[in-house]
């Protein structure tokens, strides 16, 4: 099956700093989502981005499908950004089972 690796595994930021999270996948995909799992465990959709670039406030994401990676940018980080960020990908058609990446645990300190 498809392999999904995320880097870095852990990240500590000072509040206000910017960061880039990376997701590498081993095969072509037609579904890629970024999620934020908050400290209470809920997975929150950030982006559905199988290709191209999207922005939502302080967050933006870029997927370069031909090179099999996606990047999540967090600008002006806040303590509420803390948690685990997952990318999840799928490569089959129709309804799709996704494969989750290994996750990046982010801690933003005041």
């Amino acid at each position, binding site marked *: 099956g498809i392999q999904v690796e995320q880097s870095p595994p852990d990240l500590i930021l000072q509040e206000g700093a910017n960061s880039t999270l990376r997701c590498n996948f081993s095969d072509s995909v037609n579904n890629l989502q970024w999620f934020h799992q908050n400290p209470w*465990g*809920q997975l929150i959709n950030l982006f559905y981005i199988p290709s191209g670039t999207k922005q939502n406030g302080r967050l933006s994401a870029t997927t370069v499908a031909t090179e099999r990676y996606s990047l999540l940018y967090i600008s002006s980080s806040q303590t509420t950004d803390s948690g685990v960020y997952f990318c999840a990908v799928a490569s089959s058609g129709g*309804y*799709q*089972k*996704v494969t989750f990446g290994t996750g990046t645990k982010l801690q933003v300190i005041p």
Partner: protein
Amino acid sequence: DAMVIQNPRYQVTQFGKPVTLSCSQTLNHNVMYWYQQKSSQAPKLLFHYYDKDFNNEADTPDNFQSRRPNTSFCFLDIRSPGLGDAAMYLCATSRDGSSGGAAKNIQYFGAGTRLSVL
């Protein structure tokens, strides 16, 4: 707001005592998923329903069963919980991509049920 709701948020059960977790959705999605997530790990798919069709992952233990009585509800039954089944259980829904539309294939998650086994 349309959403995915899981009850209860926290569940404590005893070793070997059957437990049922529930999930409901107002999104009218035809696909529903159950994931197990252990500490510091990624969610792991247990099974999913495509409409009423049940699809079990090959490595899901027989101890885990599921029911989907209608489009809106899906249940996870753990017949004889062991200590190793303590985890967060996440329910998700999606709309079949073949039906078209911009929102296809996006998975929406509930808040999860954290299960403790004593």
